[in-house]
């Protein structure tokens, strides 16, 4: 299963180190002192119930929300207050739960823009992303003409076209059926095995438990626990907080 990392020497050192990250909205702590690391070639899951602060956490790491405290370093540089575009240039790329695609442009243009605008992006990366996500046949269609399931792949392809070192995928499989979701997991696994570091924010427990190397559990803005899928699966606190007491 494990493959050799790609030739890019940077990928070996690329690491996202988040320490004590907090976000507050008008006095309410949405994220409260969370520590998390993602290394090259690692697929890390971030799970938690609705409203646990998962998306806010990603927003804060990627510069879309100003953190109230804490520290983010990426590839050995402090990136805590960097703008989203600067982070993307450096290789920290994200996808969105609500996709945020360029709706009035074609699928091909969506991907080409990321390939051209990001410093690391390239036409080769774009080509590869199109192939990986099987978008060749719809490259000329407007995003709005593409069915919802494949839009998720467009969003993934756009992120990959920027040649990320670390990918933060915010609920990439939301709304997919269990087969599609499993496929998605396999693709992410494959990307990680090639050296891409991935933080997978997901609601679907099965997907995360079956694909991730390591899983962190976020509850009410704080990290409840972190461990291997086996550890998390059996953790009493996780079961009661996340799956509900009945489980």
């Amino acid at each position, binding site marked *: 299963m494990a493959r050799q990392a790609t030739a890019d020497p940077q990928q070996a050192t690329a690491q996202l180190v988040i320490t004590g990250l907090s976000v507050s909205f008008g006095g309410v702590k949405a994220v409260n002192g969370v520590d998390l690391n993602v290394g090259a070639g690692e697929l890390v899951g971030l799970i938690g119930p609705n409203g646990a602060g998962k998306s806010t956490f990603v927003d804060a790491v990627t510069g879309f929300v100003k953190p109230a405290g804490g520290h983010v370093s990426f590839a050995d540089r402090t990136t805590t207050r960097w703008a989203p575009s600067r982070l993307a240039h450096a290789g920290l790329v994200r996808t969105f739960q609500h996709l945020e695609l360029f709706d009035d442009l074609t699928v091909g*243009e969506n991907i080409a*823009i990321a390939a051209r605008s990001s410093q690391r992006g390239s036409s080769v990366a774009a080509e590869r992303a199109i192939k990986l996500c099987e978008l060749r046949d719809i490259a000329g269609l407007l995003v709005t003409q593409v069915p919802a399931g494949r839009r998720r792949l467009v969003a993934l392809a756009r992120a990959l076209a920027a*040649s990320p070192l670390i990918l933060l995928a915010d609920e990439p499989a939301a709304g997919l059926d269990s087969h599609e979701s499993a496929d998605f997991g396999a693709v992410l696994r494959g990307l990680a095995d090639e050296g891409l570091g991935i933080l997978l924010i997901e609601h679907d427990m099965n997907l995360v438990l079956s694909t991730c190397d390591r899983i962190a559990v976020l509850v009410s803005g704080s990290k409840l626990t972190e461990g291997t899928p086996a550890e998390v699966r059996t953790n009493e606190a996780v079961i009661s907080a996340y799956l509900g007491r009945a489980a």
Partner: protein
Amino acid sequence: MHTDIYLAIAGLGSGGAIALMTLGLVVIYRGSGVLNFAHGGIATMAAYVFVRFYYNWGLPLAVGIVAGVATATIIGVLFQFLVVRPIADAPVLTKIVATLGLLVALVNLVPPIFGNGLPPPLQFLPSQRLQLPFGSPPFDLGEDRLIIALVAVVAAVALWALYRFTRFGVATRAATDNERAAILLGHSPQRLALINWALGSALAGCAGVLLASLVQLTPGYYTELLIPVIAAALVGGFQSFGLAAAAAIIIGCAQAVLGLYQVSWQNVTGVPGWSEALPFVIIALVLALRGRSIPERAFMLNRPLPKVPTRQPMWSLAVMAVVGIAWYALMPGSWDNPMTTSLIGAVVFLSFVVIVGYVGQISLVQMGFAGVGALAAAKVAALSGFPFPVPLLVGAAAAVPLGLLIGLPALRVRGINLAVITLGAAFTLEQMLFNDPSLTGLDTGLVVSAPTLFGISLNSVTGARAFGLFVLAVFLLAALGVALIRRSPLGMRFLAIRANERGAAAAGISIVRTKLVAFALAGAIAGLAGGLMAYQALNVSFAEFTTLASITYLSLAYLGGITSVGGALTAGILVVSGGVVSNLFGTGTFSTTWIPVLAGLGTMQIVVTQPEGLVGTNAALLRGALRALRRRAGRAPAPEAREPEAQAPVPNVREAQAPVPEAKTIGGTRHG
């Protein structure tokens, strides 16, 4: 000090009228999420109808008032029903343009219906002076002013109660917060919006009628009131009736006091317009302090912004060049200047294509940039040692820093808020720069000496043909640039930002830099157009570069087609006053008054039915005609020259990581 207080009290009258208009604006915004830029136009219509009934026809006061307010209400209801409702699911930009179209139509309808005569202040309200129980000597206050202020206060309280306690009010608030939920609760958001539009327009009508008692009516008066009205509404967060009304009254009073110091401040600072600038200062402060101040309403968006053609074929530019040259070579001399006017207008529209069409940022200040370009060009031309094209370039360059300055707020605010900021900026430029007699010569204008290039006279009067050809060349260059931008990486970034800012930032696009580049570019193009206007006029009147002109030009740009070079040219030819089509109808009332009215109505129509503008309609017609011709010629229909499918994104960008490892594909995983 005594005088200050005296003036402040006298300002209660206009303050009260501003408050009434503000209340109407807030009602419409809360009820439908539309910031009604035509609010002043509706008030104008009401006032003129009132004047006609009461003053011209001598009908009883009550009949006049009812007629005026009813007119306003009907306009609001029709507009909501015919224009706003069909575009309920369109982006903010589209809705703003629709209200701008209405404003243009209403303001231009005044002269053909009511004539150009200005009725005096009618003083139909009792104007006895009331002694106030304080001050020495005691202050007094005209009853009329007191009445207007009281009406505003009563209206504010009534609205507060209406929204607080009635089923209708609660439903409106629910629809504002969550349209979908309101529908589920059995309310029709469109019906609520209709009632709110009626109510809000009626309030604008009241303000229009009452103010006609105090001031002399001009078509533009209420349009300019829009700035203090928006300022007051902002203070109330487009929510609170009480705060908005209070702010409006205070603004009215403060402006009255500032009017006193205006002249002495102008003598010290050399800048006029302090009183008029106050509302803009308030707008800027509120937006700066609160960031997003007009609460953006979440709509169920379905309609996209007008499509930007992937390729604007270069051959069409060549056709434009040939037709242009032929025009100047073959048409009688009297047609030279109209074409030149159209082409210069088209350059202004090109600046809208960049900022509005490509980047989706609303700018109501483009004619302000043009004015700055004209001013700089005229000033530099007056100096010796700067031969002809130089002043033109300086004019373009002069608008760049201004474009950047006005682009700055665009980094934080968008949509309605940006429209408000740029509107305020246009108004401030008009009041503080263009109205400065020492700078612009105000009534007499600035004289610009006719240019020569390579020994050829480009005098727009005696050498209209040569000047026209020069303008044609400038237009073609600008058009080529704007068309090329669309295909460039910069153009892609523009479109990405227009489509989705969050997505664009995540894709590595610097929103800050890209927007500033767009504003600078659009500023430069508008400044260039301004310089051309100066050289065409040879005696520049800065009365052309008003806020209303900026509004009109945006509306016209949308009518022609906001997203393409062809649209800019279409608008230039068809609807620019003094342009080709306008000249076709001579100098009679049709071209001076009805063309602008039709343009305003046309904008509303276009916004609803054909967002790509007239050029989109024309292109469709042309394609149809070509097909028919081919069929008649008996030839097999040649394959349609279709937009090339988005090229596979394999441009020669940067070389990537050398080996491309084969990864599993989504569909192939199970058997991979």
